[in-house]
């Protein structure tokens, strides 16, 4: 039912003639009852409509546009121009730095680059190269003899377990022991394991010295090393073959399970330095306190990393300890 409180919602449709038949009849009934409203609507029969002014346009449409297909259109405002010029300068610097680094690296590797260099500099560079080549030659010659020695040692390396341990220890302590052995007093006639191993070690040292002398005397014998290629000026293209040691399988026998821990440790060759420690420590070893001994060894050679650490100068295959220290 159309009345004074709701007639406005129907007024425009009535004026435009878009009301339904029912609604139009109701509206006409209302207007008949309300002549003032009817007069208002009569004045609005010709609805005044506004016409847009086409001269009013938005000036900066380009600023609203977005670049199509992935490329971004950046309008060249002052702010953008400054930022873009900074970015361009940074790019140029990067490219220039990269090129400079590339050329520098190429020069160091010795490749030919067409650069006008004064003759003196070129000569100097060649001299440096020759000197370097000579230095390398010398080191190769110097190393040839020790390499031969190593090969002999490997050949004569004992196969069984205890001899291997001795040989290992000898290789690492031989320089230190040479002088000490020469000046050391003969060991006491003692049945302690330490003294036994020390005396054994000294005997070994003496035998090895003899072997070395023989090796020096027999220097003319050709060792089984492939001949080095004739020395020539080193260039990136030259192939340098350095004598390689022939492969030698080292047999490591497992420690028999029947042996007790104490026995195994007792058989270990103790370093000479142990003799210089306290008598108390010798007693400890005699009592079979191997762990304390190892600690002392560690302390002699250097500070232990943490409380409860054990020295590890002896290779782990001498003990039945796992490699992770447990």
């Amino acid at each position, binding site marked *: 039912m159309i009345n004074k409180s709701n007639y*406005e*919602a*129907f*007024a*425009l*449709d009535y004026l435009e003639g878009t009301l339904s038949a029912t609604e139009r009849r109701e509206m006409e009934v209302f207007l008949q009852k309300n002549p003032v409203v009817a007069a*208002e609507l009569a*004045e*609005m029969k010709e*609805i*005044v*409509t*506004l*016409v*847009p*002014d086409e001269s*009013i*346009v*938005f*000036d*900066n*449409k380009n*600023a*609203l*546009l*977005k*670049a*199509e*297909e992935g490329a971004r259109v950046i309008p060249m405002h002052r702010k953008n121009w400054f930022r873009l010029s900074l970015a361009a300068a940074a790019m140029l610097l990067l490219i220039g730095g990269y090129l400079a680094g590339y050329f520098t690296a190429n020069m160091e590797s010795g490749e030919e680059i067409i650069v006008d260099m004064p003759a003196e500099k070129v000569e100097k560079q060649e001299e440096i190269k020759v000197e370097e080549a000579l230095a390398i030659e010398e080191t190769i010659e110097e190393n040839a003899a020790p390499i031969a020695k190593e090969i002999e040692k490997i050949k004569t390396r004992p196969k069984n377990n205890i001899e291997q341990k001795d040989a290992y220890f000898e290789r690492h302590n031989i320089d230190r022991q040479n002088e000490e052995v020469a000046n050391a007093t003969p060991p006491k006639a003692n049945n302690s394991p330490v003294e036994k191993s020390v005396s054994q070690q000294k005997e070994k040292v003496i035998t090895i010295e003899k072997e070395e002398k023989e090796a020096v005397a027999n220097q003319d014998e050709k060792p089984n090393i492939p001949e080095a290629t004739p020395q020539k000026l080193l260039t990136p293209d030259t192939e340098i073959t350095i004598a390689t040691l022939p492969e030698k399988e080292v047999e490591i026998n497992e420690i028999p399970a029947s042996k007790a821990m104490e026995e195994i440790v007792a058989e270990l060759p103790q370093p000479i330095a142990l003799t210089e420690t306290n008598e108390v420590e010798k007693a400890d070893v005699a009592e079979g306190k191997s762990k304390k001994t190892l600690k002392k060894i560690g302390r002699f050679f250097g500070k232990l990393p943490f409380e409860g650490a054990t020295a590890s100068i002896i290779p782990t295959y001498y003990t039945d300890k796992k490699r992770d220290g447990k």
Partner: protein
Amino acid sequence: MTTKEYNNCVKMHADGVFRFVLKNLANRSDAQDVVQNTFEKLWRKHETVNYATSKSYLFSIAHNDMIDLIRKNKFVKAYENVPEQADRGFTNQMEAKEIMEKGLADLSPIQKSLVLLKDYEGYSYEEMAEMTELSLSQVKVYLFRARKKMQVAVTQLTKAV
């Protein structure tokens, strides 16, 4: 919509949105800011907005931003309107267009928007209801009252001429 379709929206509707906003705000720089913000908002959501309804989406955003701006500057606008009303007099050489503009100036922001949307852009009552977030009957009532006011103003101005 695609980027290309978005750019089409810019080319086709930027002027219309600007006119629509300018009539309400009467300040060119404010109107330009509203238009830029409106298109920026459309761009941000351009992948989810349908190209067919992009025009009404634009006017909807513009209308809301405009109303917010007007409410923020309500005090300033009211002050600015005083001299305008004082100057409103009767001249013989007043054109119909100017009379209409005068009549429009007396309307409230929502009434103005509705009149402009109807006359400038030709939206239906339903579309205007959706854009202005009003009910259909509310739109019709506002619009009827706006037309009545304008009619009265035009009649008075015409009689004076």
